[in-house]
Each structure stands twice: as C-alpha cells, then as structure tokens.
C-alpha cells in the first residue's frame, strides 16, 4: 500500500500517525485512511491518498487540513497534495489491532474482520439487529441495538443489559 521510495516515507507516516480522527480516539493511520503515499524527490512534493470512511463524514475537511499543516511542517517538504479516493473502498477491516484496542478502551467496538452486513434478496437474507455484540466494558453478550445511527456516520449505539452501559459499535461497511 505504501510505496517504498528512496525518500523517507517513514518520517511522513510517523507524522500522520500523530493525527487523530477528530471524532474518535484513533490515529488516521490506525483507522486505515491512508492508502498511498508518494514523495517526489525533486519537487519535495508529498502526495497522499486518503480513503473516506463515509462519504458524508463532516470530519474529512478537518482531516485534510491537519494533514496539510503537519506534513507541510516537515523539513524539506514544499508541497502537500491530499486526494480523497474510493479505490479500494474503506472498510472497518482496515482498522489496525492497535486501533481496535484503543477504540475498545473508549467503549467503541468494531465488527469482526470479514463479517458481512446481511441485506435482502440476492445479497443475503433480511435480519434485524439481533446478533450479539460483546460489551467492551464487561464482555457480556447480553447486549442489544439501541439505535442504528449514532453520534457519527460510522457508529451505532448498543446497550449492555448486564453492566448497564451504552457503547458504540462501528458500522459494517
């Protein structure tokens, strides 16, 4: 995914790793947003391809601004180009283990890698949200969906009937 060049990709990635998602305790790298990094040596131009989580995510302009500001500040960088691309589409499966752990600590769970969202007909069968999502606080499976839309476009709200906490679960996309 990240092209190896003579120039220091690592420096750029280290900087990107310090940029948090504006709405979740996770860096944009651990969230899997960074798809491609390209450094053109002569022009000192850094080009970064970002995969939007949800198209309607209002955090995108903020993320773009943060990337520009922080990468521009690296010595030798003259120009930063940030592009939002859809190939491949972002998926929750791109979230790193470190990212999953950090989210869980803050009460946000992530669908299992490779799991599918059932939709009707040719794509599967219709199901309500009945499958158990383990509570990130007490690990109980005695949980239920409270609202399929949450505080951000990528999260839903669940309630744990054992420890009586609400927690958030990322949408399967």
């Amino acid at each position: 995914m990240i092209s190896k060049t003579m120039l220091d990709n690592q420096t750029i990635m280290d900087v990107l790793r310090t940029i948090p998602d504006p709405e979740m305790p996770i860096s944009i790298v651990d969230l899997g947003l960074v798809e491609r990094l390209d450094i053109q040596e002569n022009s000192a131009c850094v080009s970064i391809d970002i995969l939007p989580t949800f198209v309607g995510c209002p955090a995108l302009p903020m993320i773009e601004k943060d990337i520009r500001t922080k990468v521009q500040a690296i010595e030798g960088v003259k120009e930063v180009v940030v592009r939002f691309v859809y190939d491949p589409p972002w998926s929750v499966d791109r979230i790193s283990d470190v990212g999953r752990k950090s989210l869980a600590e803050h009460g946000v769970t992530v669908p299992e890698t490779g799991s599918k969202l059932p939709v009707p007909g040719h794509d599967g069968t219709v199901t309500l949200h009945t499958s158990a999502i383990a509570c990130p606080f007490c690990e109980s499976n005695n949980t239920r969906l409270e609202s399929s839309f949450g505080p951000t476009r990528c999260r839903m709200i669940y309630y744990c009937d054992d420890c009586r906490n609400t927690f958030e679960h990322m949408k399967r996309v």
Partner: protein
Amino acid sequence: MNTLPENLKKPLTNLLLSVADDKLMLGHRNSDWTGLAPILEEDIAFSSLAQDEIAHAQTLYELISSLTGKSADETAYGRSADEYRCATIVELPDDYNWAVAIARRFFCDHFDLLRLKRLSKSSYKPLADLASRLHAEEKVHVQHVDAWMVRLGHGNDDSKQRLQDALDTIGPYAPMLFEQVDGEAELVEAGIYPQLENEMFIIWCDDLQQVAQQSGLNLTLAAPDADAKGGRRGLHSEHFAPLLDEMCEVYRLEPGAAW
C-alpha cells in the same frame, strides 16, 4: 476505462443526474424530520440519512462536473425544474406522516441499492469506484428501513394499518423510479450501466415482497408503463417546483458565492 467516449457524456450525465437528484430531493425531504421524528433515535437516524443522501449527491455532482465542466454547486442548485431528473416519489411531501416516510424510503432505498450495484460494475472506473463506496453505505439504509417495516408491521393493528395505507398511497409512484433517462440503452450497451444477473425490476420486486411478507403487509407492484413520461425526462409533479424553490432559496440570493 478512465476516459469516456464523447458521445456517451450526455447520456451518462442524464443517468448520474437521475441518481444524484433522487438523493438530493430524498435527503432534503428526510431532513424535514430533524427535531420532529417520533423518537430520538429516529431523529438521529433521519438526520443521518439526509446527511448521507446529500453527501452522496454531492460526490455525484462532482463526477458530473468532470463531464460537463459546470461546477457541482451550479449543477445541484442552478438548474430549472425541467432539467432535474429525479422520480416523482422523492418529490412528494410526506405531510409528517411517519408511515409514509418509512414507506417511501423502503421503495427508494431498495431501488438505490440495486442501481448502485449496477453502477459499481461500470466499465467507467471513476464511476465504479464511487458507486462501490456508496453501495456499501446504502446497505445500512436498507437494513434500517427493513427493520422498521418489520417493526411497524408487527407492532399493533394501528401501526400495521398505517403502514399498509402508506404503502398503498405511495406504492403506485414507485415503479416510475424505473423510467429510463434519455440515452440509457447506449450506456447499458457500453457496459457503463451494466445489467444485473436478472431484470432489475424483478429483483427489486422480489426484495420488497420478501420484506413485505415478513412484515405481514400487502404489496402490489406493476411494471412501469414503457411510454409513461415522468421525472427522469424532466416532467415533474406539482410538488416539485415549490420544493426546488425552498431548497434553492439561499443559493439564488447570490449564485456562486463562496462559503
């Protein structure tokens, strides 16, 4: 392919306008529920759905802009009513009837999911990439509305009757979602809007009937009249002009203004 043959630009613009205009109008209609939905969760849901649809429309207008050279904003808000390609079903007011709002989304979301699936297989790569992303998001909408169909269908006699009435009222408008835009056949031919494994209308009916059955509701769906002319070719209902005027009120104060 990454470059579109010149003769297909106009048909593709028509098709993309139909997708984007459906989403823009439905999103706008759904945003009416912000602050007024029957429960807090659905207030958030309908606001989020509106946010999604309008954002989807925006990315599609940007893609259209790459074909026409006109800005996305101008494309979204700067056209006359007969230049819009949305279907009548997204124009209708729901009169703050929750069952109508759900019934409308039921017909439209299932249609949109199939349409985006077709577009995600498009031979025109920028479109296929974008449609794949939108298709993944649209699944969440379908799941949400199907859950409501089942919930209201099995709620009590009152909820079931209201939803049945809503389906009966708005259902007759739904097949016109399938009206073809000018030049659609050429796009199908060129693989830009490929067919699904079966006739899209048949798959759509099957999907809807499956959910209706689970919900204990009756659904009668007739194939659209091939000669009927409607929103896809610029012929809109009486509800469209006022909706457009309301939506464009701010834009028209100062077209081209930067925010």
